């Protein structure tokens, strides 16, 4: 009976596509990272780890992620709470909050470049207020920390929206009765947030954190737009080795590093934020 075969038929294109364009290339990367003309080797990894930039690169990426993601989480929770509390103008505010969702990281980088560049808006304000005498070159290698801050601002600005969207839809799934019950038992707004919203939001928090952390490890265009190669990050170095240094094996090794920390953080969040069986809404 064809009825039984139908679901498989419908899944076939997607499965084939993912096998050819997802699993196979990743195997290729893994093979590439361990191969040389002579066969199996660890040389790409040695080249990568002994290169002077590797330590900074890894450290920069992880530090950026460790700063950006928590800030985004707090801001997104604030935004989501505002949105769920709003009565008038909810749709307009929601649209404004979600705008950055549609923007590419490159666009975000360029937008913040307009603020931080030497003849940009930040300098205009600082000079106008008399805080500095002449415009400062913020995005040079002398001011590495400013590039760092600019990247953080741009990333927080761009990618908080997706976290908020996930949290808002998660909050929508929490029945009102729980809040009313908590209120009857004497919980104030803050306690209600801590004791009802946060625990019930756990699955959404998990999704949001996994998604954002992985994306943060992939930070690339924002950094390039704001700092060129002054602030090396993993994705940028991968690009560099592939093209500028023309060593695909080392690029593959970098890719595996990104993959490894991505999977590690995914597993971490899956474990830490797991919902006990039967504790779902």
């Amino acid at each position, binding site marked *: 009976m064809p009825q039984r075969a139908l679901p498989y038929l419908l899944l076939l*294109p997607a499965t084939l596509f993912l096998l050819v364009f997802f699993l196979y290339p990743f195997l290729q*990367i893994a093979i590439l990272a361990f191969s040389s003309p002579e066969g199996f080797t660890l040389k790409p990894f040695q080249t990568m780890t002994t290169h002077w930039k590797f330590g900074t690169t890894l450290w920069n990426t992880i530090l950026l992620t460790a700063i950006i993601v928590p800030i985004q989480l707090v801001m997104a929770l604030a935004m989501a709470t505002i949105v769920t509390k709003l009565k008038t103008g909810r*749709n307009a505010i929601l649209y404004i909050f*979600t705008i950055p969702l549609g923007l*590419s990281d*490159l666009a975000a980088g360029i937008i913040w470049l307009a603020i931080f560049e030497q003849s940009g808006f930040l300098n205009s304000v600082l000079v106008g207020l008399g805080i500095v005498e002449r415009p400062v070159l913020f995005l040079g290698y002398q001011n590495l920390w400013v590039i760092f801050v600019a990247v953080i601002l741009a990333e927080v600005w761009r990618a908080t929206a997706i976290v908020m969207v996930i949290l808002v839809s*998660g909050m929508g799934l929490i029945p009102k009765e729980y809040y009313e019950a908590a209120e009857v038992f004497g919980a104030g707004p803050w306690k209600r947030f801590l004791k009802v919203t946060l625990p019930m939001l756990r699955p*959404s928090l998990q999704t949001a954190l*996994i998604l954002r952390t992985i994306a943060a490890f992939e930070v690339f265009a924002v950094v390039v737009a704001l700092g060129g190669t002054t602030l090396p990050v993993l994705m940028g170095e991968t690009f560099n080795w592939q093209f500028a240094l023309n060593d695909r094996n080392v690029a593959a090794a970098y890719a595996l590093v990104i993959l490894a920390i991505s999977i590690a953080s995914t597993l971490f969040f899956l474990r830490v934020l797991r919902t006990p069986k039967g504790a779902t809404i």
Partner: protein
Amino acid sequence: MSVATVADVPRPVAEVNAAGKFLFIAGTVLLCAWVLVPIYLLVVNTLSSPQEVSGFPKTAIPSFDFGSLQFFLGFAGVVRALWNSVVVAVLTMILSIGIGAPAGYALSRFEFPGKATFRMLVLMTRAFPLPLLALPLAVMFIRVGLDDTVLGLALVHTTLAIPFAVLITFSIFSGIPIELEEAAWTLGCNRLQAFQKVVLPLVLPGITASAIFAFTISWNEVFAASVLTVENRTLTAFLLQSLSVSPMHLKFAGGAALVLPALIFIFAVRKYLFAMWGIANR
């Protein structure tokens, strides 16, 4: 009990509410400004003449000079890059919905062995930095003659978009009660007819929204586009490549060109964003 209530006379509720309300509104305004001001500044730069863009200090009101935009559109390769971006995004949209929607439908309508495995495969893609796929695929594409083509890039972007397409269409189809389809079967439809006459009209807006979402994913993608294209650069790849060499006004006009469609797209799909993510969560 009664002593305690007398002792700490609470502040009038209205007063607490007023303070809270002020804080609430201030926070809302601040967050809106945080989102909108940077975009506004980009607009100011885009609508200023090239001299103003590199001049100092900046003003907060644009001069509505279209010099920057004219320069941008006249710049060698820009129109082509814009066109490439559109073509790749449209291809991605068609491919990812064409491949993802049937899978989403199957997941929402059938119980069958292997369903969990497939869901795993789709969810797994989330844990992988997908743009990196471009590296090995670049080699594979050279072998099959897809290197530096819009189709090749569209295939990679489709890989990025398929997990979303599957999960989003899954949630959209799940929103259509199966009884509607069953009713159509009992009223003389075969499976395909029931889908065409009942399911399709109902899911079309949602499918359109997810198609637009796929378009946006492709439109915004930088890394794979830069890796896979040389001559046939998309707008993002073109801008990235010329970042270090191009004048400021070109960058800002390019940034604006990236932002504008995205603004429209998000506006178009705003109703669906939450429904899509609400169920895609699980």
